[in-house]
């Protein structure tokens, strides 16, 4: 075996009751490289990572893992062994204690001691030394909840590095990051590489693989489909490997033309409901037409989520502005009222806001729509079952039956359950806040197709997305937001990645737009 292989995964097979999660998986990872792993949800990526982390201990799988020429044998229930060996995972869901400082988090569980107490000076100076060494622009004394998602992730990375990680596993690291933060992350990873740290980079986002990785492994249905240097691959090939079939275009075509205006917002201003002097929406104007997909682009903190939740009546307190629905003045007083008026919201972060994970698919779909098949005294289970079933079929939710708990579903299927819930309420306006975040290519495509189908039925869709490709590919028009303000609305012919980024950073307004507004 050559010396430059740091991690040699040989013929790993892992079975769960009824499922083979990994089937004779072999991957060689070179020392100091950035190795991308991609695959649809359920392809076996997470299982593989959990084995490397020791969550599935030695003996629960077949095959062997050589690490620096020695076989890894983690005991049951000892996750620290992986850390001590130098394998660290930065999970998709951040695992920081938000009320503690960066330093406290980095050394959580391994605080430097001074007698019976903690040596705070050493803790903070060591943390800052690590942060500075890798050019992570964070103050060790900052409370974590005050950081943005991007910096929280850097804190996680710093934590891993402080434990002398030799291999850093990043699970979907950019799913919550803005473009600027992604750039920063890429820089950090390259920097780590120059310090000899090996990275395993798991992602759905193909452009990132080409930007940063040295080699890529594609998993599908628990098998390794290919594992080769990135330079020998292109995007079409990767998609083909991942889904096992060719997807001709990433964004399906749509034929319909938007109809008449059904929803208008003029000069909307709103404040944080808890902090009345904190303005979160600072003057937004737009209108939406029937059958239109209206994109809202913007960086994290640009006020896009605040805007749509305010329109849905569940967040901001409106201080100024007019909202017209079907030409009539409306005020939405809450989610129930919004639904009655034909406005639905597929919220961001399905696990936190979209689903009751411990409940069944059926109960989740019907939660917002119990009125349709129940009186105050009785739920008609058969009618409920039938209605949910028809939506589950329409959205092609993959599950043996509707009593399956949502926590066992893949991300794509979970998102479909959330969408099913909101479609059942029969909306005229469907707001989707980052609907494809963290789901695989195949499921994304299905959601795009569904959006097209809905818009052809005349439903107006407002889509927020952090993925520029997606928002350009799907929208009829795009409004770019920055710091609570609309920076302008782009027509389809003016869509351009760089233009949107420049507007989103708040530097330049869309001049065409401003001039057009002035004409009348």
């Amino acid at each position, binding site marked *: 075996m050559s010396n430059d292989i740091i991690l040699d995964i040989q013929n790993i097979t892992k079975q769960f009751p009824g499922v083979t999660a990994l089937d004779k998986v072999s991957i060689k990872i070179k020392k100091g490289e950035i190795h991308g792993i991609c695959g649809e949800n359920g392809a076996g990526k997470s299982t593989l990572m959990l084995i490397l982390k020791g969550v599935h201990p030695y003996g629960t799988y077949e095959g062997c893992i050589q690490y620096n020429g020695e076989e890894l044998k983690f005991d049951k229930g000892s996750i620290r062994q992986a850390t001590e060996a130098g394998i660290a995972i930065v999970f998709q869901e951040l695992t920081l204690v938000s009320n503690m400082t960066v330093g406290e988090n980095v050394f959580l569980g391994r605080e430097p001691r001074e007698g019976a107490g903690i040596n705070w000076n050493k803790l903070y100076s060591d943390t800052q030394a690590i942060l500075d060494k890798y050019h992570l622009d964070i103050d060790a004394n900052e409370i974590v909840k005050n950081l943005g998602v991007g910096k929280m992730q850097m804190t996680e990375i710093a934590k891993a590095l402080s434990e002398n990680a030799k291999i850093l596993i990043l699970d979907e690291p950019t799913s919550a990051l803005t473009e600027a933060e992604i750039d920063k992350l890429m820089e950090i990873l390259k920097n780590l590489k120059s310090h000899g740290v090996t990275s395993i980079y798991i992602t759905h986002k193909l452009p990132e693989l080409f930007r940063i990785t040295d080699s890529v492994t594609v998993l599908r249905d628990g098998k390794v489909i290919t594992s080769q240097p990135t330079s020998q691959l292109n995007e079409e090939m990767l998609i083909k490997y991942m889904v096992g079939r060719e997807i001709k275009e990433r964004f399906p075509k749509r034929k319909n033309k938007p109809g008449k205006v059904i929803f208008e917002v003029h000069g909307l201003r709103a404040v944080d409901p808890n902090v009345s002097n904190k303005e979160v929406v600072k003057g937004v104007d737009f209108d939406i037409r029937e059958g239109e997909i209206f994109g809202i682009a913007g960086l994290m903190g640009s006020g896009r989520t605040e805007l749509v939740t305010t329109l*849905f009546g*569940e967040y901001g307190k409106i201080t100024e502005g007019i909202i017209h629905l079907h030409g009539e003045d409306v005020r939405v007083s*809450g*989610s*129930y009222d*919004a*639904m009655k008026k034909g406005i639905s*919201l597929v*919220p961001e972060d399905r696990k*936190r*806001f*979209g*689903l*009751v*994970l*411990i*409940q069944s698919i059926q*109960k989740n779909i019907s*939660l*917002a729509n*119990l009125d349709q098949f*129940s009186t*105050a*005294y*009785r*739920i008609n*289970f*058969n*009618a409920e*079952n*039938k209605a949910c079933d028809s939506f589950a079929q329409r959205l092609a939710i993959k599950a043996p039956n509707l009593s399956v708990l949502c926590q066992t579903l893949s991300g794509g299927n979970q998102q479909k359950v959330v969408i099913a*819930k909101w479609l059942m309420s029969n909306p005229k306006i469907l707001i989707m806040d980052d609907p494809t975040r963290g789901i695989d290519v195949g499921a994304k495509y299905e959601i795009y197709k569904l959006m097209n189908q809905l818009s052809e039925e005349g439903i107006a869709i407002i889509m927020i997305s952090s993925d520029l490709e997606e928002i350009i590919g799907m929208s009829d028009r795009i409004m770019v937001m920055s710091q609570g303000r609309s920076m302008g609305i782009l027509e389809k012919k003016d869509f351009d990645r760089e233009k949107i980024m420049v507007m989103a950073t708040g530097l330049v307004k869309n001049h065409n737009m401003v001039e057009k507004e002035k004409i009348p």
Partner: protein
Amino acid sequence: MSDTSSFLKKQIKENIQTYAILLAMAFVWALFSFLTKGMYIGSQNFSNLFRQMTVTSFLAVGMVLVIVTGNIDLSVGKVAGFVSVVVAKFQDDIWFNVMPNNELLTTILSVLIGIGVGTIFEAIQGYLISYLHVPSFIVTLGGSWILNGAILVVTEGKTIAANQPIFSYIAQGYLPPIAGWVMAGALILIMFLTMFQSRRNKVKYGFTPAPIALDITRTIFLSILITVYVYIVNQYNGVQFPVLLLAITAVVMAYISGNTPIGRYAYAIGGNREAARLSGVNINKSIFKVFVFMGILCGISGVVLASYVGYGTIAAGSGYELDAIASCILGGTSTLGGIGTIFGAIIGAMLMASLTSGLQMLNVTAAWQYILKGIVLVLAVYADVYLKKSR
């Protein structure tokens, strides 16, 4: 037939917790029966055991939904206690002076006032918790102190009798054996009718109902349970009135929790409050309603308590809240919210009552009863955690 067995397997897997606690019950009964040479499951003890568990069971039945919504109610013991002294006071003091010879009417009025008092008190607490967002732990802790004082005010430190024959019947009465049999027959008939009705409804909506053999087996099994129960208690005095009351209450609450929007919302709120809110669920109203139900059940519990002991005292209801909470937890209610069943809570209460009764028969001192019950509670929850992990 393989259809039936796979269905059965799924049922067992989904309800493993229920079956586990039923097994634990059977084990406790078998153990005590062995240790007492069969006296334990003799009709007299059997009858008393069920009668003894009713007071806290009413509280446990209401507590399930409170815990499911992610709240807790530490005041229920004192609410029931307060209701019991209020009922006693009206019964033997006030009504007796106003209309001395109207036993039935005074009983009815006292019961209504008792339930009303419990409901109003819990409604106030529920309002503070749901609409004003004061944590339930604090509101109900404060509530129990307030009622502790209120009980002293009402009783003036004395014991008030509540032993008019009609009132006593509520917790001490028995149905005549014939009435017990008629009731059992009617119940079995209703069970079969609802089973067939539900199958017909399923077909009407185009679904395949569960295998008929399975449905029939289950209904026959329940029928046998009812028959055996009525047979045993008829050997002693007959079906106990408070147990009948508890059974009716439990069925109503189980229906509310499983078959109405109120129940569905309660579970959704406990499972994910934010998701429920964004789905148009009125969180405040739902939690308020759950506390109102808790109040009605505290009222009933208090009435049964007064009737059971025959008087209202300053110590009435002390510690019952913890018994009720323990019953819920033993019965599989999750302290994190979102999970729990009425049936489980009843079985949990029964397990606790069975332990107490058995230990008393074996002349174990009160001190050791507490110690053993504490150990059983913690062990049972550990077993549950362990089962969940290994699944």
